[in-house]
């Protein structure tokens, strides 16, 4: 095949784009970093959207003292469960935004057509989503935990379990968000798809937080939580990439 010679447009871009290897110029890592950078930039231009899941998380944890009792001793018993249910729902709330705008304005299409492995780009998008929702939730959690009567000594354990757990939640959620692309009013369906798959994370995460509140070692559930996160990192981007491709058909 004769190599196709392209005249360069700008002087510093004297790259030749032959049809054989036109994308040698950008590595996979660089492309993934661009995706991450773009999502973070966009999020900081829309700060209101950024704060919503956090506000939701705080409000939900606030509901429990009002619904159960203001006694910290009673709240402490359910604190781990409350924190995790609130975190699960808050991260679910943010999922709807994960791909919706990108699908709407054609960005997703360009990701698929970029010639880069879509799996890696999906992973970068999920990483951005976690940085914008999971990590802030974990950082907020000590406040919520203290208000539910958790002892200060338990806070590191709670934060660590949430950091690991929300990674898994973001990955699972990315599958649900990709599957429900192109469906109008997909909110309830997204919850129906994502929540059953998230139950193991809830179980191990809540257990780790509970043990932290009781002052017991939390290694066992943390390891299981870590295993889920690793499994999610390896498999979830594959599934969401497949789902995104299908949604564009």
């Amino acid at each position: 095949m004769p190599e196709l010679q392209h005249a360069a447009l700008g002087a510093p871009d004297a790259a030749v784009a032959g049809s054989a290897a036109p994308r040698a110029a950008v590595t996979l890592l660089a492309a993934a970093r661009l995706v991450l950078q773009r999502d973070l930039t966009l999020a900081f231009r829309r700060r209101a959207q950024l704060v919503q899941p956090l506000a939701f998380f705080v409000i939900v944890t606030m509901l429990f003292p009002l619904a159960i009792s203001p006694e910290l001793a009673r709240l402490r018993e359910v604190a781990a469960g409350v924190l995790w249910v609130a975190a699960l729902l808050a991260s679910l709330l943010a999922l709807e935004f994960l791909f919706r705008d990108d699908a709407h304005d054609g960005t997703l299409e360009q990701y698929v057509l970029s010639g880069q492995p879509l799996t890696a780009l999906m992973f970068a998008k999920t990483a951005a989503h976690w940085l914008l929702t999971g990590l802030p939730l974990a950082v907020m959690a000590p406040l919520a935990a203290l208000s539910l009567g958790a002892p200060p000594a338990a806070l590191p354990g709670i934060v660590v379990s949430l950091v690991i757990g929300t990674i898994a939640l973001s990955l699972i959620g990315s599958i649900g968000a990709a599957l429900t692309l192109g469906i109008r009013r997909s909110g309830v369906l997204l919850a129906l798809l994502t929540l059953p798959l998230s139950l193991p994370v809830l179980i191990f995460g809540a257990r780790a937080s509970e043990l932290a509140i009781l002052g017991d070692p939390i290694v066992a559930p943390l390891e299981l939580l870590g295993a889920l996160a690793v499994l999610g990192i390896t498999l979830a981007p594959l599934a969401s990439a497949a789902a995104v491709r299908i949604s564009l058909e």
Partner: protein
Amino acid sequence: MSDPCLQAENLHLWRGERHVLRGVSFALSRGVCLHVAGANGAGKTSLLRTACGLLPAESGRLSWDGRDVQEDLAGFQGALIYIGHEPPLKADLSALENLRYWIGMRRRVSPAALASALQRVSAAAWSERPARTLSAGQKRRVALAALSLALVPLWLLDEPTTNLDGEGQQLVGALIEEQLARGGMVLAATHQELPLAPARVRRLELRLA
């Protein structure tokens, strides 16, 4: 002329109950522009999306350099740029940022190249404004800048001249000419005439189902 580079043989596509593409075949060689014409709903957009591998055809074969595109889909897609009805711009990013992220996924572009591409489409004055504030024609111009920056052999353009003023349409013609001159290929779907010398244009007429 060299051998056909992008070749479609007997493509069939169904959308639900509608038989959209009924055995479409075409061959596109280097330096040629294929004008896909047809009424609204004749399947122009579907053909373009099939040709870039977004829509899998139900039957038929699409080959690139003689090999089925499914063998190396990412490689094929890296060699093309597709611009649909709506230029894929993020409303909250400026024209410049949009270009940087869009083309930056495919190849390294220097700020100078970005600036000169924007200059070329007369976008320098508003290239820092968020895309949300741009008119449809201005957005189209940003997409034209992306075309010239991508440096890929195959362009797939869906209605490239809509929303553009006379000068903008001439620009589309000039860009396509340049692409053809350097041995590239263009597949353009439009129900209007392309602002291009007819010698290098082949026509593919799609009929309504």
